[in-house]
């Protein structure tokens, strides 16, 4: 463990990273190891195939969406910073953090977690989950087990329930409202990333 500091130094801008994401050095190192393990060819960045090699992810119904979330639009690779920043969304919320009035909201706040989830639904990034997008998600989750019309009726009902301004789509605010009873802090946090 004496090599922690040296490993840390090898990662560029690690201070900024820790500041932004709130990860401790131990976490950064762990994530760095994982990053290197995924990056089999040692290029220093990840491409979609590297993610695709994780076999459990391939079985995940929304696996490709998750992978897509790592890659910002237009970019083909993910470097370590982006990797850590995305994963920072799933850090458990710090309850005792002092509230500085001027600092930006931390990445793992409830609102940002929800935004991340929202983006996974909203693939065309227009700020709304349209009926088609919802259908796509349902289709991928429920797969071949249900008929098309069932999916459609579920989608219709979902939109009907959540859509408050009657625009046949779910905006982020409506999304947030429909999940207000769910404990997002608990649901969208991975323990070991504390």
């Amino acid at each position, binding site marked *: 463990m004496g090599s922690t500091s040296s490993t840390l130094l090898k990662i560029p801008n690690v201070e900024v990273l820790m500041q932004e994401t709130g990860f401790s050095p131990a976490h950064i190192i762990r*994530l760095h190891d*994982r990053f290197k*393990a*995924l990056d089999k060819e040692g290029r220093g960045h990840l491409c979609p195939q590297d*993610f695709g090699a*994780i076999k*459990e*992810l391939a*079985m*995940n*119904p*929304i*696996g490709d969406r*998750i992978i897509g979330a790592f890659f910002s639009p237009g970019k083909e690779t993910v470097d370590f910073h982006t990797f850590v920043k995305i*994963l920072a969304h*799933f850090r*458990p919320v710090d*309850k005792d953090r002092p509230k500085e009035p001027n600092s930006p909201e931390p990445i793992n706040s409830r609102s940002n977690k929800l935004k991340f*989830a929202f983006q*996974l*639904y909203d693939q065309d990034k227009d700020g709304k989950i349209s009926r088609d997008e919802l259908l796509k*998600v*349902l289709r991928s*989750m*429920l797969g071949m*087990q*249900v*008929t098309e*019309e*069932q999916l*459609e*009726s*579920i989608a*219709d*009902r*979902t939109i*009907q*329930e*959540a859509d408050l301004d009657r625009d046949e789509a779910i905006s982020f605010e409506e*999304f947030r409202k*429909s*999940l207000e*009873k*769910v*404990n997002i*802090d*608990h*649901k*969208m*946090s*991975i*323990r*070991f*990333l*504390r």
Partner: protein
Amino acid sequence: MELKMFILVLGLLVGSLMPLGGASGSPGSGTGQDECKKNNGDEKNGNKTTKKSFPVLTLDYKKVRLPFEISLWVLLASLMKLGFHLMPRLSSIVPESCLLILVGLLVGGLIKLVGEAPPVLKSEIFFFYLLPPIILDAGYFLPIRQFTENLGTILMFAVVGTLWNAFFVGGLLYGVCQLEGTNLASVNLLSCLLFGSVISAVDPVAVLAVFEEIHINELLHILVFGESLLNDAVTVVLYHLFEEFTNAGTITVTDGFLGIVCFLVGLCGRSVRGASESTACILAAFTSRFTSHTRVIEPLFVFVYSYMAYLSAEVFHLSGIMALIACGAVMRPYVEANISHKSHTTIKYFLKMLSRAQVSDTLIFIFLGVSTVAGPHEWNWIFVVATLVFCLVARVLGVIGLTFVINKFRIVKLTSKDQFIIAYGGLRGAIAFSLVYLLNPDHFPKRNMFLTAIITVIFFTVFVQGMTIRPLVDLLAVKKKQETKRSINEEIHTQFLDHLLTGIEDICGHYGHHHWKDKLNRFNKKYVKKCLIAGERSKEPQLIAFYHKMEMKQAIELVESGGGSKLPSAMPSTVSMQNIQPKKPLQDRALPQLSKAREEEIRKILRTNLQRTRQRLRSYNRHTLIADPFEDGLDEILIKRKKMKELEKKISQMNNYLTVPAPPADSPSVARARLASDPQAWGLKSVTEIPTIKVELVSPQNPESVKVVDEFSKKGSQPKGSEEEGGLTMRVPSSEKQRKDKTPDEEPQPRFMRCLSDPGPAAEEEDEDEPFLP
């Protein structure tokens, strides 16, 4: 007013109880009371013999004594329950369990006054008859999701907490006993430890009784409740351990070592118990798969299998309570998928009746009260007070210490408020009492003292803590339970998030909570569900099941509210319901607004003119025959289409001859409506009648037409039959002028899928049950 009546009834009951019951209230009373019994019996016999000229009226109480008394007790318990609800003010201050104990005290006191020895809570009755229903009820309705999410915490509290409590209390008590000034030197360490282990267990019955009424949030509820359920395993093991030691007389180091081994085995004996209970679960679930024809006995399977699991666990001195809980909880999803709705309701209400709300709970508390009055007491101030104090202190310390450790591993931490409630909610109850009662007086000379102490502690916790917990909860503003129903949004998004988290965990390479849950779900879906759930339901994903439940609820509401009105948003859903459960009753039909008179006319016309086959044909309007390339039978459809076109051509020709084969007394508008809405029927009707009237016109076509009819009827019979069987079509208002489509929906696709997926035609339906659109 009600109160007075109630007390009167109560008095009557008790009055009738005493002479009849004699010395034995419940079956299997203590041996010392047998003599009294005999005396009474003789008395009665004596009474009989004196007036024995002719046995006009015999008083043979002995025969029915046992069931009579049991029923009497049950009646008493139920009346008590009823009585409390008549006094709402009282029941809001004092929890039911307290009241019941009070009543028990009262009754016991009365009985004692009369000079009879009141019945005591025999351990067998308690463990074999009174306790299982409560536990089964708890296990069957255990909220699995919260339970598994907090399983680590619960286990920590249950195992480590109970151990800590046991040794702390036992050790300190031993220390107190050794003090000068008390004459308790005869109490050895083992007895103290045994006592400690018994008294440190939080009691599920008491917890249930109190927590149910205060409606705290689910997290706390499940924590305390789960702990009370799971700590039984530890208690049982410790109990038997110490009992064996005491019986053995002396302990050596090897014995001590063996003891530890035994303890571990006992804990790991869960796997053996796991075998028994999982066998029971699987058997129950499997059996329920085949019960589609014998719906009435379904609940029986649930009860019997669970009870056997409980008993078989008790055979091995493993915790029967845990077996029962696991059995109920695991069995539930599979059994519920198989059994009918009525059976489900039966199970639910029967369990609730037997256990928590009605019988067992009440009886236990009443008996506790009675036993207090009855039981041999030995009051030793120091011991009792020391016990009480140590219990409380141990609980508080234990909770604080454990929470400190646990919070390191939890995402949602336990606040100090939570800790307080958990510590305060550690109620002791009848299980502890029964366990001590089971002790052999020879080995435990101070058994009576233990009994007294236990009763004191139980009373204290139930009364003091039970009564004050509600105002405390309000005072501390602890979060209450949210009475909400999940919306479908929440359901979908929660599942989505589950997948998301699993994916992220895979990316991090971390085998966390979600990973294992996902694996379990996959395993469940692939193998287990196939075996244990009958038929199609096995493939139904959870989301769909949830969705169906919602839709059904809505449909039922609609029907109950006098629905004949349209279901705008649920319309598509009715079709989907149809797909999965073709047997579902036709509860929700979308009927357009049609005047009754018009409907009647149309029906009459149809009845007089049309045959069934034609009715079926009606649905095959060419406008509905949009081919669905994904379905089989495309060729069939095309052929039908063609035939339809031909027929319609003929019909348009025949329209000129409207008046010829006129049906009786039709108003023109109706006729037009009929024409417009039912070309085929009209056409076919004329086809058959034409031979009598217009031979020349139709004869060349006649054979063909007839053939068409037959073909149609053959092919048409199946779909229409299923349509009628399904009976759910979607009504879309259409202009009657250009489109000759009346009945059917504008979405042929679902119709087809339904038709071809449904089994063939069902019962014949003479009546036209699909009104035309005006």
